[in-house]
């Protein structure tokens, strides 16, 4: 299991949604979401890692604590996957967008949107 998956698993075991978790612990939601999806590596800074562990309710010295830090250590030795495969991008594109006027977007914006998903 990758670090991000582990973090998500612990959060969800506590029945806490991503939004509630980020708001309660003042985590940046964009970055935290990337972390859980393995797009961002775990923080290198130990204090930041500990803050995350505490926010997840992981007790120091527990098996969960050990696993949390082992996975972070292993993960930090890897290069994050910055560019998604074409097939995966396509699976994440919308058929409908929720816009204020309920309208479609133009082609220029479509290109930018693809870029945004690539980097998300």
């Amino acid at each position, binding site marked *: 299991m990758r670090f991000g998956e582990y973090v998500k698993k612990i959060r969800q075991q506590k029945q806490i949604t991503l939004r509630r978790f980020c708001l309660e612990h003042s985590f940046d939601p964009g970055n935290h979401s990337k972390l859980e999806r393995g797009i961002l590596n775990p923080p290198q800074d130990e204090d930041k890692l500990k803050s995350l562990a505490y926010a997840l309710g992981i007790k120091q010295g527990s098996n969960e604590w050990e696993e949390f830090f082992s996975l972070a250590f292993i993960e930090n030795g890897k290069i994050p996957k910055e560019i998604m495969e074409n097939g995966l991008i396509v699976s994440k594109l919308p058929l409908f967008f929720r816009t204020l006027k309920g309208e479609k977007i133009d*082609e220029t914006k479509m290109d930018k949107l693809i870029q945004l998903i690539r980097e998300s």
Partner: protein
Amino acid sequence: MVFDENLYKAPFYDYDLIRREVMNFVNHYSISADVPIDIDYIVEFDLGMDVVPLNGLHLAFGIDSWLSKDLKTVYIDEDVFKRSDNRYRFSLAHEVGHFWLHGDFIRKFDFSNTTEWKEFQSNFPSEQYSWFETHAYDFAGLLLVPAEKLRHKFDEQISLVVGAGEKVEKFSNEILLGFITRRLGDYFQVSKGVVEKRIFKDGLTLKPGG
């Protein structure tokens, strides 16, 4: 990919049919009737979707949210995620509407690259596109503002006005509606506009004959 105009045709869903579909959805996932409806929880835990905040989505594209083609992820504007409870909740409910009402439609399409996706988007007739959006909008309103609770709270608010010694007839419809939609919007955690549409669609009247 060959595009056939019929492929884009929106199914015919009137408001009552969507109302029944919302009930089916609620029963299927045993959604609690507690208000405000915990749509955040429903999306992540009942439907098992990821919610992914994207910075600048609204500013750059005018988009609040979308449901991914694989039906597994709701992308949402990060500012809405962080700062706007009502819009966040409504956006999620709207995407759940697409999931429940249009899942079969969405699954029909298989893009092998982004060019095919862009072609699909360009060919999508605006009129049909609007119908899909209307369905999801109505679904969201019905899900977040359940009929029975709406009627009960609506009557309660009217009684409050009357109980305060004011005759309902004394107020203009506009003032009364503004008062009620604000109170009910706070209760259901949706915008005043959503409440207003729900009141109208459920045929709740402010005054006798009004």
